[in-house]
């Protein structure tokens, strides 16, 4: 921190500038806290109201006028139709059949709640329709007491509170500026800390501590002069800043935020609608194989093995087929190269989910194309999705069909850059075809294939559509790869979002390791 | 008064130990065309770009018309530049290319039209105003690039090897064009090239650069007739100067340079830095231009004996490459009765037209 950094920028201006930056951040944190709190607070209020009303009705007293409370009876056999069972509802002293004409709007809610509370459970929740209504139901003498409150809006945004607090903070900061050097930092600290006051009142401890931490950080930055340099940097690079901001904002909202949330969700368990913090439980369960043996599809390591095998097999096949075709197509004496090339990249042009479904159809049953072909050659039917090996092969065949054109095109491009004169000189020097391939063709292919293999391996590793649509993981989830497995945790095995998120994080780490180390190895095989 | 001044300019790139330009001081007087010339990598383009504002000097100041522009962006320096690759905006017509800078300054449309048309007329571009750059030839494109600079009426013109992309015949025509425009506009200009012919024909003053260091500043005649060191001497003149190693011995009031197969009396009057007491100067390099060697003796010429190794017939003149005891010699002479390869010749040297350089420091004596 140099003396000149103080004298060059008018101190008051600098204080207010730093307060402005920190203030905006603190405001965002406080607003987030507010939104969280007000929902909580609304729920508490409404549920309390509903609870009291339900208790009142259960005791036979009247409920509050704004609350729709009643006692719903057990289901009784209808007098008119003996196979029907109906409930009756008693409210305000009058009894009627629940659900009969004329319809009352809340009847469905009462009916569902009665069914749920029948088992003896007590319900106390907000209605999921976002109206702000709470529903409480529990068993009572004579049936089930249910209370539904009127809609209520959560507390409005406290503009005045925030403006007041900002003003107070700004004056503290300015006061600090005018008093003296040490007072400046104290002023900043105090000014930003005032923004934490509302959060303390709302008992949002997380938000309060974040804002206080922010206050300390900014004051410290001021102390060592970083805040000045930062502000100057922003001004120097203001053009770049303005150009980058739309994409930067979009990326933070659309990519960074979900990514962080995905990371955090891995530490929770989601079960039937409720989230519970479980720490590293999900991760340990996944990494320890989830209590299953190594050849069971629910074991993470099994799926990882399948995924690695899947990737390696595919890339090997893609490169072999693609490069062989490229070599064939680049022969000088080949006619119709353009047409062949155009036709051979057709598989790449087709949307890959259609390819997957198409091949699934071909592997299906007796009359599927593949089995028909086997018949024609005299072999028997194969139930492609009945065993692991055949299902896996079906997947690989499909993915190879759609994947080889990419390698072929890359190889063709690389082959086109080889000057003819090299081959001619080699022939004149007496090299055989194999020698020409090894010493001229191969070294030219490697630099192009390196990045292609790196990219292709990542695409194959994550190829969701083929696995999902061709074998569908059959038999019994064993041909799943990591990404489809994570999907199933989230959307098929009972909405276990926590497990899915944890597995997603693990997949990300694997890919990160591969991107950093593996691709470097692949690409380092290029000639200098 | 629109002069250009560079003082204490230094340019160093991060991670590279040697600075491209260690310490440059240069003044370009108003209305003069100063040509920076030197081999590739000598820092001439870098200097130009720093004046343009496309690169920042590591240290030093640049003043245009007395105003310190060192840290100003190009837009605020009131300069115009003609690029080697023309840098015309491909999606705009010739008219729009020339008008672009004026439009940014929000000049009235009528004024823009007037200026552009006048400049186009003076450059012979009137019929091409509505064409796109890709419909133009190289020479026409370069004219448009020049027109774009002229139309802005800047304080300083900058030329970055503008003729390097043109073929030889066109280069000559465009050279004269540029000279004419400079005379007409009477503008201050900095011109960068590696071609010594462009330097000699266009410059009011030449600045010779090597490795970022100024070797010599002077008029074309000065540079040619009195090169400050061996590098400058060898850079200018085609074919380049002959250099012969010799030892200098001094006696009372006279000196002579002695080498393999020759001894040249050195008139002390012609070599003012040769003081009688300066006995430290011993090993020298004698420089003599090819056109100063002849096959006929005149006056006190000193002979050099050798065999013609090769003969290049240029038409009216002939260049002979002669192997002599003193080393290889290049002689430029009339085509007349020129000897053939294999012939033994006597080449005559006029002692008054030699240049002497210290062998170690390569400075002129």
């Amino acid at each position: 921190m140099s003396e000149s950094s103080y004298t060059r920028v008018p101190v008051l201006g600098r204080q207010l500038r730093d307060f402005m930056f920190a203030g905006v951040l603190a405001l965002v944190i406080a607003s987030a806290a507010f939104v969280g709190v007000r929902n909580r607070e609304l729920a508490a209020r409404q549920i309390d109201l509903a609870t009291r009303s339900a208790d009142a009705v259960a005791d036979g007293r009247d409920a509050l006028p704004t609350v729709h409370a009643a006692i719903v009876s057990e289901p009784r056999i209808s007098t008119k139709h003996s196979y029907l069972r109906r409930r009756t509802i008693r409210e305000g002293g009058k009894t009627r059949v629940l659900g009969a004409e004329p319809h009352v709007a809340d009847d469905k809610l009462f009916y569902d709640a009665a069914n749920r509370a029948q088992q003896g459970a007590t319900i106390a929740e907000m209605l999921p329709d976002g109206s702000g209504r709470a529903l409480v139901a529990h068993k009572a003498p004579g049936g089930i007491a249910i209370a539904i409150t009127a809609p209520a809006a959560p507390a409005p945004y406290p503009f005045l509170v925030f403006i007041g607090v900002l003003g107070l903070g700004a004056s503290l900061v300015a006061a600090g500026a005018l008093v003296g050097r040490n007072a400046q930092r104290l002023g900043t600290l105090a000014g930003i800390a005032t923004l934490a006051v509302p959060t303390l009142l709302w008992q949002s401890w997380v938000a309060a501590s974040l804002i206080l931490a922010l206050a300390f950080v900014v004051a410290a930055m001021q102390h060592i002069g970083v805040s000045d340099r930062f502000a100057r940097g922003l001004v120097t690079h203001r053009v770049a800043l303005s150009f980058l901001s739309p994409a930067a904002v979009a990326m933070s909202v659309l990519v960074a935020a979900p990514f962080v949330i995905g990371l955090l969700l891995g530490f929770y368990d989601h079960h039937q609608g409720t989230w519970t913090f479980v720490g590293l439980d999900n991760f340990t369960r996944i990494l320890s194989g989830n209590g299953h043996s190594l050849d069971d599809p629910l074991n993470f390591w099994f799926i990882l093995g399948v995924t690695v095998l899947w990737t390696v097999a595919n890339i090997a096949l893609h490169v072999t087929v693609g490069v062989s075709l490229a070599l064939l197509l680049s022969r000088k004496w080949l006619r119709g190269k353009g047409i062949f090339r155009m036709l051979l990249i057709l598989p790449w042009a087709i949307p890959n989910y259609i390819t997957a479904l198409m091949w699934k159809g071909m592997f299906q049953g007796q009359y599927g194309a593949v089995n028909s072909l086997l018949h024609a050659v005299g072999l028997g039917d194969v139930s492609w999705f009945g065993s692991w090996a055949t299902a896996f092969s079906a997947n690989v065949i499909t993915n190879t069909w759609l994947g080889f054109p990419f390698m072929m095109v890359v190889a063709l491009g690389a082959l086109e850059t080889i000057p003819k004169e090299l081959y001619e000189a080699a022939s004149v020097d007496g090299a055989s075809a194999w020698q020409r391939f090894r010493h001229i063709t191969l070294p030219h292919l490697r630099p192009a294939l390196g990045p292609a293999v790196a990219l292709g391996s990542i695409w194959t590793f994550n190829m969701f559509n083929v696995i999902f649509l061709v074998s569908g993981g059959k038999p019994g989830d064993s041909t799943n790869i990591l990404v489809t497995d994570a999907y199933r945790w989230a959307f098929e095995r009972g909405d276990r979002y926590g497990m899915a998120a944890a597995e997603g994080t693990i997949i990300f780490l694997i890919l990160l390791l591969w991107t950093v180390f593996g691709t470097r190895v692949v690409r380092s095989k290029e000639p200098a | 008064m629109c002069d250009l001044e560079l003082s204490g300019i230094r340019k160093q790139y991060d991670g590279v130990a040697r600075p491209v330009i260690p310490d440059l001081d240069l003044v370009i007087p108003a209305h003069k065309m100063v040509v920076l010339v030197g081999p590739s990598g000598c820092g001439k383009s870098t200097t130009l770009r720093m004046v343009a504002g496309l690169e920042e000097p590591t240290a030093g100041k640049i003043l245009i018309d007395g105003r310190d522009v060192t840290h100003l962006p190009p837009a605020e320096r009131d300069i115009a530049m003609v690029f080697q690759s023309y840098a015309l905006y491909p999606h705009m017509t010739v008219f729009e290319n020339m008008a672009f800078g004026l439009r940014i300054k929000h000049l009235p449309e009528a004024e823009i039209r007037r200026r552009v048309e006048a400049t186009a007329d003076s450059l012979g571009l009137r019929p091409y105003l509505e064409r796109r750059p890709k419909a133009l030839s190289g020479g026409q494109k370069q004219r448009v690039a020049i027109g774009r600079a002229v139309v802005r009426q800047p304080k300083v013109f900058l030329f970055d090897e503008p003729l390097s992309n043109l073929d030889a015949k066109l280069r000559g025509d465009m050279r004269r064009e540029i000279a004419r425009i400079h005379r007409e506009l009477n503008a201050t200009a900095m011109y960068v090239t590696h071609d010594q012919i462009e330097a000699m024909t266009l410059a009011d003053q030449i600045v010779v650069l090597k490795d970022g260091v100024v070797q010599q500043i002077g008029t074309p005649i000065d540079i040619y007739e009195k090169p400050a060191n061996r590098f400058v001497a060898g850079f200018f003149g085609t074919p380049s100067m002959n250099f012969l190693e010799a030892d200098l011995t001094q006696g009372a009031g006279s000196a002579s340079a002695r080498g393999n197969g020759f001894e040249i009396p050195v008139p002390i009057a012609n070599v003012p830095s040769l003081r009688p007491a300066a006995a430290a100067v011993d090993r020298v390099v004698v420089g003599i231009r090819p056109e100063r060697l002849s096959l006929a003796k005149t006056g006190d010429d000193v002979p050099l004996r050798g065999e013609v190794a090769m003969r290049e017939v240029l038409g009216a003149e002939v260049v002979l490459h002669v192997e002599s005891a003193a080393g290889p010699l290049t002689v430029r002479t009339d085509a007349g009765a020129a000897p053939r390869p294999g012939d033994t010749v006597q080449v005559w040297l006029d002692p008054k037209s030699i240049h002497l350089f210290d062998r170690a420091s390569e400075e002129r004596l």
Partner: protein
Amino acid sequence: MKRRAFNVRHALVHAALIVLVAVVLYPVMLVCKKAFEPGHATSLGGSPLPEHVTTQHFRDLFGARGPHGELLFLRQAANSIIIALATTVVGVVISCTAAYALSRLRFPGRKAGLTTFLVVQMFPATLLMLPLYVILDKLGLLNSMVGLVLVYSTTAIPFCVWTLKGYFDSLPRELEEAARIDGASPWMIFRRIILPLARPGIAVTALFSFMTAWNEFIMASTFMTDESKYTLPVLIQSSVGQFSADWGLFAAGAVVTSIPVMVAFYVLQRSLVGGLTAGAVKG
């Protein structure tokens, strides 16, 4: 030296290639045939040439009606078009200035930014699917076109930034230097010089974004639950269900949906490989 004589080996290779191409194209021909063949087959097989031709499947496809009697296919096609267009517009508009900054401007954190965009592109969108699902659920944007466009933008923006940056890199720097000397501000240079020159690159990027969004299946299927909100890929997949599959309908849908993107693909395929490998090599 050319061999004019009939070379057996060459002829064999040509023949083998033709066979190979036929094998590769067989599935495609099968699908085309099934689109026109009457009957509701339970699998895809048989000869690639139809014995009888009918437009029944196409009529089924176009004529499917929803619960309120509206034409579903038109609705779903419109969904696909709107969502793909919106994603493209959002992607290109938001990314172009950032791509320019990353290409031309110097600022601290540029290298980190470039690496970030490259790395983000390499990771599957399916990893983010779960958190996005949870977030959209909280925001009430599930089963809505806005939500799906947001989800697609998650991958579209990094892709557009990276591709456009590669394209801007290829524009000659001298043009910008000349413009700077002419007095243009960075924004003016971007708007008046760079953008007009980058039109082909922007078109290619836009077309790729459109194709990617058009072909996207799993997220559309997960996030959209209403039939009327389906995009075409979801529709096509639903005709090949767990237990019953109408391959004729599938084939008709596949033909109709694939043709536009296949045409676009063939137009673009030369720039595809260049962009991919250049991006990967430059890092």
